[in-house]
């Protein structure tokens, strides 16, 4: 398997194997320092809609907050109203011709009638009829030099982002010249700036922390970071590392330690060329996993989901799997001080489909083992920190 397939597989694994379920009423943290209440939001959907969307994005206007998700079966963008709790309409994307959208990786709504779409080789803006109103090819040329192995990327753990400069789009970037099993892969830049006017690409001075750059091994599938942006500052978390890397606008990097109280054992390094499908999966079960970050601009809180390490083998013919890992969420203030860690219920959430609005932290209830999963409802729990 090549690196891109491993990347996709890592993301798929994480996407489908996430945890937790919850009481629907008032609750409070176990640590008791930051209380919250939680409410369930159910959006009825017809048979053409999905119970989980990836990629997705949020658009907030003065009137409403919209959830926009990619429906891969229909090749459409489905729009939902989060306040009215209903499905609104679909933007059908073309499959052929000049308006075709291929290899859709992520979306960034600039307005309801102008959604930025990132494909593998093109950025475009589509209107609500699915027509392209703007497009620009992605030519992997950095500082005038061509790098065919570089790929711009975006996904739920690393959303595209426009900062204070309206013509600069921030994306993740990987150099697929090297396999993710090789040490060199972990020295590459992680973030790129794409100039929407002239298509120029520049790389930001951020790469993997030193733990990933060791000679002796790698961390298997636990290798792709999550990122949020607060203004022009990027905040990164890496799956097995209990700290945040903060890339400041001037290029300096700060490190903030944020260890979960359920981080009871560190991840082991796998042999550099490990490709055994059993050991790779067991490694994911036994390792701590700092998963996706979510920024709440209304309460100025940062959420970091954490999947705790658990034993792989329980007894004969009885094993834990990734979907059994307990889920919690670390809650930090805007200065990245750890305020609390909320224990979330098991086998309910797909925590990578999480976002914050003025109502709180939404987490999609679509864990593959969730007993309440139904095809006719898009369900979220909304955690509202009392802060």
């Amino acid at each position, binding site marked *: *398997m090549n690196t891109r*397939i491993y990347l996709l*597989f890592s993301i798929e*694994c994480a996407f489908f194997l996430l945890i937790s379920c919850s009481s629907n009423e008032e609750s409070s943290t176990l640590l008791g320092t930051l209380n919250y209440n939680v409410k369930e939001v159910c959006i009825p959907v017809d048979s053409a809609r999905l119970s989980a969307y990836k990629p997705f994005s949020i658009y907030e206007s003065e009137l409403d907050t919209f959830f926009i998700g990619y429906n891969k079966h229909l090749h459409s963008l489905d729009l939902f109203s989060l306040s009215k709790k209903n499905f609104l309409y679909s933007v059908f994307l073309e499959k052929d011709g000049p308006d075709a959208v291929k290899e859709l990786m992520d979306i960034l709504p600039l307005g309801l009638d102008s959604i930025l779409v990132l494909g593998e080789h093109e950025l475009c803006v589509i209107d609500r009829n699915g027509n392209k109103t703007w497009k620009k090819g992605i030519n992997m040329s950095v500082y005038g030099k061509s790098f065919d192995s570089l790929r711009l990327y975006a996904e739920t753990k690393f959303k595209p982002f426009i900062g204070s400069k309206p013509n600069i789009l921030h994306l993740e970037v990987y150099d697929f010249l090297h396999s993710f099993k090789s040490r060199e892969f972990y020295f590459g830049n992680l973030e790129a700036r794409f100039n929407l006017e002239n298509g120029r690409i520049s790389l930001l001075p951020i790469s993997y922390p030193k733990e990933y750059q060791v000679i002796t091994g790698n961390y298997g599938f636990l290798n792709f970071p999550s990122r949020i942006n607060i203004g022009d500052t990027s905040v990164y978390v890496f799956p097995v590392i209990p700290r945040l890397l903060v890339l400041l606008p001037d290029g300096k990097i700060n490190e903030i330690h944020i260890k979960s109280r359920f981080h009871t054992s560190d991840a082991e390094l796998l042999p550099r060329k490990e490709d055994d499908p059993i050991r790779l999966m067991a490694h994911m079960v036994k390792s701590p996993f700092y998963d996706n970050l979510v920024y709440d601009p209304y309460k100025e809180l940062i959420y970091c989901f954490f999947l705790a390490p658990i034993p792989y*083998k329980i007894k004969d*013919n009885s*094993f834990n*799997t990734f979907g059994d890992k307990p889920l919690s969420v670390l809650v930090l203030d805007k200065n990245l001080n750890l305020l609390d860690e909320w224990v979330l219920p098991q086998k309910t959430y797909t925590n990578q489909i999480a976002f914050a609005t003025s109502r709180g932290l939404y987490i999609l209830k679509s864990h593959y083992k969730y007993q309440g999963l139904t095809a006719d409802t898009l369900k979220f729990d909304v955690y509202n920190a009392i802060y």
Partner: protein
Amino acid sequence: MLYIKKVSVIITFLGIVACNNTSKFPMEKEFICYLDEVFNLETEKSLYIFFLQSKSCGSCTNSALNVINDFYNQNSYPYIVLTGEDPRISKWLAVHPNLLTKAFIDTTWQFEKYGLRFSDHCFFHLDNKKIRFSAWITENNMDKLYEYLVKENI
């Protein structure tokens, strides 16, 4: 002379151990138990099984389905065990109705309890409650897998 004999015995022993180690599938016991207990398959008989992981990446699943397609035979097609619902594989099965009689879908995720969540699809040849042959269905393994399937006249 005695020294040479001793060395010869040791080398032979190490050779046997090495051969056994390379052919032994680490989760053999669990896999056999799983097939016995969840699907009541007659694992004492000679069985060919494609063990497909749901929600794998598209490329991996296409590779597995290509292999099955290549060795699809009305008389002696292998069993297919699919770990959970997977729209792509279900769609493929729908257009191969003859295969449905030998296809098992683990809709309740029992395979995970037996430690059988892998990152790749796998082919097995079982015989007398032992795994006689196994191969991950990956690009690197295709030659080995095809060679075996041809040899077995599947």
